């Protein structure tokens, strides 16, 4: 202990120690495999894009708002149709207005939640399916370039599905009056974000 108290080198060695920390690279005990890298890239693709996040949460919220069986039908419909868009994107089939479609999905579905729209189940499914093509295409265009395209596909389907589940979980609040206000407000925020995405403000 006395050595530490009287050590004249301590102030000089400390910056050296800090510099050494900055100079070092991270020590990774486990290297990621190709499949792992592809999965993580795909998984993060919908989660790191705010336009995707807003629309996916809105799908879950709307499903919860509509109640059974829509609460499950919409999250079933979305990935199925999204896969077709993804396949088209991977195959290089062009679809016009992808970014506009994604932004419009946040606006339209957000508005549906805000206005507590309760169309027939088939209409709700068609609306969600229509927008799913744009989201799938956006993810799919990057699929062939991924380290492992199949792992990438699995990643973005699961990532998208989990965002739906987040929306559904939040949508469960509609069981109370205050919760319904909160959910509808969230729909309004998502719709406003959709306007932002459409105009390029966000």
């Amino acid at each position: 202990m006395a050595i530490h108290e009287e050590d004249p080198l301590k102030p000089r060695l400390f910056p050296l120690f800090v510099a050494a920390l900055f100079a070092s690279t991270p020590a990774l005990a486990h290297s990621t495999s190709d499949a792992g890298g592809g999965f993580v890239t795909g998984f993060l693709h919908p989660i790191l894009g705010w336009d995707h996040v807003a629309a996916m949460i809105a799908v879950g919220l709307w499903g919860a708002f509509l109640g059974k069986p829509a609460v499950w039908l919409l999250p079933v419909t979305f990935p199925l149709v999204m896969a077709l868009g993804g396949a088209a994107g991977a195959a290089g089939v062009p679809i016009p207005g992808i970014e506009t479609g994604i932004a419009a999905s946040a606006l339209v579905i957000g508005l549906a939640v805000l206005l507590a729209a309760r169309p027939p189940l088939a209409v709700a499914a068609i609306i969600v399916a229509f927008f799913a093509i744009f989201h799938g295409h956006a993810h799919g265009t990057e699929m062939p370039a991924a380290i492992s395209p199949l792992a990438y596909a699995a990643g973005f389907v699961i990532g998208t599905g989990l965002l739906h589940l987040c929306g559904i979980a939040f949508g469960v609040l509609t069981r109370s009056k205050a919760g319904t206000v909160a959910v509808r407000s969230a729909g309004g925020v998502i719709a406003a974000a959709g306007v932002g995405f459409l105009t390029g403000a966000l």
Partner: protein
Amino acid sequence: MRLRYLAGAFAFFLQPGTAQSHEAFGDLGPFYQGLLHPLADPAQGLVLAGIAVLLARQPVQVVRPAFLVLLLCACFGPLIHLAVSTPSLDSRSAGLVAVILGGVAIFGIALPAGLVAIMAGAIALLAGIAGDVLTDVRSLLLSTGGTAVGIAIFVLFLWAALDIIQSRLGRLAGAVAGSWVVAIGVMAAALPGAPA
């Protein structure tokens, strides 16, 4: 004092680079390579996830015999691979199989126990035959054991997780998982010739 500077300089040389203590899917030996195959090969993982989701949508009386058949067939896969040098599961085939399995799971159709057992066995064989051909008996036995355990754990874990989720959220939660399997399968099938 000099000694301390020397120690400091020495410590500087010891700053860590990328210390890879384990290559996740490197030379782990035949048992662990077989065990990790469902995770290392997305095509295998996809078909196994498909059968797990399908099993989760069936009554438990149907699942029990199917799981036994799956385990037995998982053991035979590497042996068949050795005898007949079968090709590994490609992404297009895996995708088509996943579309069928996931499609059946979405609709939750109750299938005869025999048919489910045959499907489980076929999937285990498909997953089991993928991998390197091993010629020495010890490696083959270890690989076979690892593959069987890996397939069994993967399917059992996924089935159990889905079963619990369905018991809490309702049977339709399994349909959502089925739709995920179909979606991944459609895109896998749209990638002909691509590596899994």
